[in-house]
C-alpha cells in the first residue's frame, strides 16, 4: 500500500499537480479508510504518513488525518469510489476562476472526461458544505473542480483517480495554451460536451 501511495504521490508532485505539502489521497478498506497525514509531502510519503481511521467513526488517529478527511468520508459514503485523489492542479485551478465548467477541446480529454464541473463554496478547505455537495457530482463525473482550490477525483484504485487528475490538467493546459494563441479553433466538437 505504501508503495502505491508513495509512487503516485511522487508523480502528482513531479507533474506539478501539487505543491510541496498540498493535496491528499485515500483508499477505502470496508468500514475503514487510509488517508495521507495532514501536512505530509505527497512527493515523499513515508509509511508513517499513511493514517488509518474509521469511515464513520473517529478514533485517536483523527488527530493525524488530512484536513480533507470529512470530504473523503462523505465521498465514500455516497459513491462507489474506493480511492480518492485531491490535488491542486495549476492550470485547472486557473481555469476554474474564470470559467463555469471545463469542457475539453482535445480529443483524449473529450473521450475520457467529456466535462468537468466547477463548484463554488464559501469555505473550500475541510468544508462541511463541500462534503455535503461534492459527492452528488462525483456520482456522475470522474473528477470535479472546486473553484480556486483544486480537484477531487475518484476511482477503484488510486491509479485511476490519479489518471483523471492528470487528464484534467492536460485538458486545462491545452485550453489555456489555445487561448493564448488567440487563433480560431478549427474543430468545435467541444460545444456539445457542455450538455454532458
Amino acid at each position, binding site marked *: 500500500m505504501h508503495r502505491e501511495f508513495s509512487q503516485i504521490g511522487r508523480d502528482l508532485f513531479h507533474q506539478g499537480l501539487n505543491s510541496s505539502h498540498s493535496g491528499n489521497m485515500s483508499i477505502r478498506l470496508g468500514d475503514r479508510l487510509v488517508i495521507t497525514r495532514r501536512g505530509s509531502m505527497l512527493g515523499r510519503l513515508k509509511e508513517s504518513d499513511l493514517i488509518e481511521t474509521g469511515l464513520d467513526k473517529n478514533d*485517536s488517529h483523527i*488527530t493525524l488525518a*488530512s484536513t480533507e478527511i470529512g470530504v473523503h468520508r462523505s465521498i465514500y459514503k455516497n459513491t462507489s469510489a474506493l480511492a480518492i485523489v485531491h490535488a491542486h492542479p495549476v492550470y485547472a485551478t486557473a481555469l476554474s476562476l474564470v470559467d463555469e465548467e471545463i469542457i475539453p477541446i482535445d480529443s483524449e480529454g473529450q473521450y475520457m472526461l467529456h466535462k468537468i464541473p466547477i463548484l463554488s463554496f464559501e469555505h473550500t478547505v475541510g468544508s462541511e458544505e463541500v462534503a455535503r455537495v461534492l459527492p452528488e457530482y462525483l456520482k456522475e463525473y470522474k473528477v470535479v473542480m472546486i473553484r480556486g482550490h483544486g480537484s477531487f477525483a475518484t476511482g477503484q484504485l488510486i491509479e485511476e483517480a490519479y489518471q483523471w487528475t492528470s487528464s484534467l490538467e492536460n485538458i486545462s493546459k491545452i485550453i489555456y495554451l489555445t487561448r493564448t494563441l488567440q487563433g480560431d479553433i478549427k474543430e468545435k466538437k467541444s460545444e456539445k460536451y457542455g450538455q454532458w
Partner: protein
Amino acid sequence: MNGWTGKILRINLSDSTISVEKPDQESYLHFLGGRGLGAEYLWKEVGPEVKPLSQENKLIFMTGPLTGTKVPTSGRFSVTSKSPLTGTILDSNSGGLWGARLKKAGYDGLIIEGKAEKPVYIVINDKEAHIKEAGWLWGKNVPETTEMIVSREGNGYSVACIGPAGENLVKISGIMNDQSRALGRGGLGAVMGSKNLKAIALRGSLPVKAADEDKLNFVLYETNKWIKANPITSQGLPEFGTPVLVNLFNESGIFPSYNFQESQFEDADSISGETITEKIFVKKSGCYGCPVQCSRVTRTKAEEGEGPEYESLWALGPQCGISDLEVIAEANYLCNRLGLDTISTGVTIGCAMEMAENNMVDLGLKFGDASLLKGLVEDIAYRQGIGDDLAEGSKSFAAKYGGEQYAMQVKGLELPAYDPRGVQGMGLGFATSNRGGCHLRAYMVGPEILGVPKMVDRFSTSGKAGLTIFYQNINAAMDSLIICRFIGLAVSEEYFARLLTAVTGHQYQPQDLHVIGERIWNLERLYNLREGFTQLDDTLPERLLKEPIKKGPSGGHVVNLSPMLTDYYRFRGWDSQGVPVSRKLTELGLEVK
C-alpha cells in the same frame, strides 16, 4: 485603552487595604499580560528572601489583552507566584469563565498580598471589591464552597477557590475555578491557603471593546475557518476530549506507565478517549468563547463529574499501573473537589508505589492496586498518615525515604504524560522549563508526534534546541495574551499577532510575539537564577537519561540531553552555565542589576 483596562486591583489581606493602580504602558506593550506581566510583578516584588508560604509571597492573578474578547478560547487567566513545591517562579493558567469576568469587572489583574488573620474570601462586582469573613466556608470542598458563595452573593458570580488541600498547605494543591477548572500546578492552592484566603468571587458586566471591530471580525473569520477545518480542533478534541491522545501516544511508545518504567501501557485502550466516550461520557463542556469544547462531563456508576483530562487520566491511571476507568474518573473528581493537582498527585503516588515495591517504604502499596487510590488522594489532601509526606510532592517524599531516583520530576515539579526518551525535544523542554517538569512550556509533541506544523524526527537531537526555544518563546506569548494552547494546533502566531493588533490598536507582527516571549522566558530564568537555581537543575530524572526503554516503538532510547542542552544555551544567547549574557538582556530591554 482597548484590550487592556489599564487597572490592577491590589488587595492586602494583612491590613485589609484595597487599592487600584495603573501599570505604565511600557509594561503592557513589553509583557502583554498574563504570564508576562505576572513575571514582571513577581520579579520586582517577591525577592529571594521571601519564603513561598510566608505572607510576603504574592498571588498575581492576570488576564491578557485578548481575555474576554470574541477571540476563541480567550476566557483564560493566569496566576503567578513563587512555588512552594519547587521554589521557582510559577505561573499556571486556567479556562472557564473567571478570567473573562475579572476583565469585565474592570481589571486586568488582581494582586493578593499579606495574610488575613482569619479565613476570608473576596467579592468583586464591577470594580467594587470587598473582603469578607470566610469561617463558614473553611473546610468545605470546591463544589460546596462555590455553591455556598453563589447562594449568598447571588447568581452571575464565578468563583475561584481552594479546597481542603490548599487549606492544609499541601504543596501539590491547586486553585480551582468555575468548579472544575484548575490552576493545577506547583502548589498555588497552598499559597492561597497560607494567606487564609478561601475564595475570590467575581461578577462583571463591563464591555471589553476592540480597537478595530471590523478587522477583528475578519481575522476571527479566517481563524475559525482553520479551527473548523483542522481535524484535531474540529473532530479529535471535540469528540474525545484530550484523552484522544491516549491510543496515539501509546502506539508511539511515549505513554509512560509504572512510574516511567515502561513507555507503553498494556491496557491503554480500556482508558482511551474512544472508551471514555463509549462508557462514561455524558456531555461536552468547555470554556468561555471556545469552539473546541474539549472538556467533558462523565458519569461512573457512583457519581458524576468533569474529566478526566489526558494528563489526569494518565497520572491516576497508567502511572500507577491502574486501568480501572471508573476508579480513575472518581479519583479525578475527588482531586477536583479537594483542590489537588492531578498530575502531581498521581506521579507522587506512582513514585511511592515503586518505592514500596522496592521495600523502601512499608505502605502496602503496589502498582495496579486501584482499591487504595481514592483513600490516598484523601490522605494527601488532609495530610493524614503517609499522606502528610506525599503532600510534599514526589521529590521531597522520595528524598525522605532515600529513593531520590524514583521521583519523576524536574526542579521538583512532577512530569506529565510523555516519555521523553521517545521524543527528544520534549526531554529538552522538560529539562529547561522554568517552572519544572511541564509539557506546556514547549509542547514539542506538536512537531515530534502530531506533525504540527511539520513532522520532525522524534528520535533525533538535531535541530531540537532551536525548535524548543521557538516554542518556549511563542508559548510564553500565548500565555500572556492569554489563549489556549490548542488554538496553536490550528493557526500560527501570524493569526495571534493580527488578533492582538485588531483588539489593542497597537501594531504587532508575529516576530514581536517571539521577542515578547523571549523577554518573558529570560526574565523567568533570571528569577530562578536569583533564587539559587543553576544549570545543574536543567536536567531530567536519572532513569530517563540512563535506562533505555525496554521495548516497543521507542525501544532502546534514552534522552540524549547533553548535546541539546549545550546548543540550547548557545542559541538562547546564554553563557555555558546557562546565564543570560548582558548583551542578550539589553537586546530584550531587560534592565537587570
